[in-house]
């Protein structure tokens, strides 16, 4: 009887550290298995419809038009030599850089103006200012198209009232380029405004008080307090916007469909015209792929700067 009780106790005592360890291990293992299973839908979705298409695009871009023969980098060479494509590269960069700079400046101004007015009124003003960003872009661009209409358009009527002649808004290359940029700025500025407003609110008030005691004026406060504190959010917002603007499709497609004389084509609309409308899938794929290194380059540098600064703040 005494032996009988002793043995299991001794056995338990000997076995318990091992037993507990395996239980812990089992728990950890089960935890990570569950974790992996919960991520599985996401992994499958991204693998099937983002990663696989990306590699498939590289493969497609190296085929000939009928997709029967391998041509290596022939499509890329062909595109680079083509005058239309050189225009596309120029216009994409012009469109993205001009629009993002304008949006950033206007958004910054608006955020400052909003920051000046008392909090309870901010909500109404913010609601009004966010309207361009709330309406689906494809639909609001239709309105812009109608306002740019050459014969009886809203803008030309106003110009006529002041004694100016009609402007062929979408009919002349550089004016059409300006119009696409203007619509993009109209659509994207509210996004910058809310991002910057959130950043402005996160700057501690003590910093401004300290700089005021040191005799800093408004401009110095802006450059030595506000901007350094906002640098991370500015770079992230600019990166997001740069990518979506660079890859923009809706505005150019609806407003000009690339014309006049292919002067407003950007990568996305040109890829659509070549790949889907003319049926040259490999050439379209090659055209889209030109965006990738540019975007990856921008993303790499911005994100590296952001993580570096985050580490500095944490340290």
């Amino acid at each position, binding site marked *: 009887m005494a032996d009988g009780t002793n043995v299991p106790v001794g056995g338990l005592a000997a076995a318990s550290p091992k037993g507990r360890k395996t239980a812990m291990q089992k728990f950890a293992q089960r*935890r990570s298995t569950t974790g992996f299973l919960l991520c599985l839908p*996401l992994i499958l979705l991204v693998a099937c419809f983002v990663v696989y*298409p990306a590699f498939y695009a590289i493969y497609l871009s190296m085929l000939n038009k009928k997709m029967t023969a391998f041509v290596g980098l022939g499509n890329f060479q062909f595109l680079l030599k083509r005058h239309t494509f050189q225009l596309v590269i120029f216009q994409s960069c012009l469109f993205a850089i001009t629009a993002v700079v304008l949006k950033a400046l206007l958004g910054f101004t608006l955020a400052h103006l909003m920051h000046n007015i008392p909090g309870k009124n901010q909500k109404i003003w913010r609601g009004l200012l966010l309207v361009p960003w709330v*309406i689906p872009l494809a639909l609001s661009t239709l309105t812009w198209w109608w306002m740019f209409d050459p014969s009886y358009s809203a803008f030309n009527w106003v110009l006529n009232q002041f004694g100016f002649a009609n402007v062929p808004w979408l009919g002349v290359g550089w004016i059409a380029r300006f119009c696409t940029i203007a619509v993009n700025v109209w659509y994207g500025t509210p996004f910058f405004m809310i991002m910057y407003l959130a950043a402005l609110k996160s700057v501690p008030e003590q910093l401004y008080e300290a700089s005021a005691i040191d005799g800093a004026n408004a401009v110095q406060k802006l450059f030595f307090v506000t901007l350094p504190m906002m640098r991370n959010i500015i770079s992230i917002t600019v990166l997001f916007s740069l990518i979506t603007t660079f*890859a923009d499709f809706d505005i150019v497609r609806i407003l000009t469909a690339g014309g006049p004389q292919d002067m407003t084509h950007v990568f996305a609309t040109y890829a659509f015209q070549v790949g889907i409308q003319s049926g040259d899938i490999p050439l379209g794929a090659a055209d889209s792929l030109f965006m990738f290194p540019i975007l990856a380059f921008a993303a790499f540098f911005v994100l590296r700067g952001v993580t570096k600064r985050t580490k500095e703040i944490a340290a």
Partner: protein
Amino acid sequence: MSASVADRRNAIAAKRGNSLRNQRLWALWGSYIALGIFVVMFLVPPFYTLMTSLKSSAEISAQVGSPWLVRHPTLENFWYLITYPNFQRYYLNSVIVTILTVSVSMVISVLAAFSLSRMGFWGSQTLSTSVFLTYLVPPSLLFIPLFQIIGQLGLINNFWCLVILYPTLAVPFCTWIMIGYFSSIPKELDEAALIDGAGYLQMLWKIFIPVAMPGIIAATIFAFTVSWGAFLYPLAYLYTSNQMVLTVGIISDLIRGDVFQWGKIMAACLLASLPPIVIYAFLMDYYVAGLTAGATKG
């Protein structure tokens, strides 16, 4: 003597205080005026949409007087669209696609965010980073290979292909927002739940989702925005009117060759923008909070 000095000092202080207050007041009014100008500029296109949608085709084609005003307001454009079977079809398709996309995206991203914020497994760090990088992939980068893939799946000209493809645009950012909200929930809460014998799914359902409701709302609105307003995928993959969604339906149906029925197009734009406007009017705060929190964390 001393009293007069004190008086003078007070007077100077009052004057200075006054000028500071005046300065503040001027800054305030200046801000209001500048904001007012911006609001007017921003609201010109929606206003013009509304004006045009209230005009009859005769009034638009007459081309007399100011195009900014409507002389004989009529609802005939709206009535035409509401009773137009194709337009009803587009609306219905948009609603179906959006509801399915939002549900699929939210299930995928909430599960993934729960796992990535709480259960470290081999490669979970890399996975969170790649989720963020996936968000940076724009739709126009991959639509041509996807055209081929959708074709191989037999889903060209079938709006179900949008239900498969839209989540790829919505899920990365929704997951990113949700990771942020879930990570801010104190670990003690899930320890307490585990001690009480809750399983992981119970923990997610009973603790994480209720506590992170603002984040769920923000992510849902993002998924809704993506799938309601997307234009490139439906334009590239759908071509008959029984499969089209609103964004492409309006453009391909109401614009026939060189005939622009602007009144009807503008009315259709208004009707199609109504759901986002209503949703944003009520839930804007959550969305802005989620959006800015996501970016500041990045």
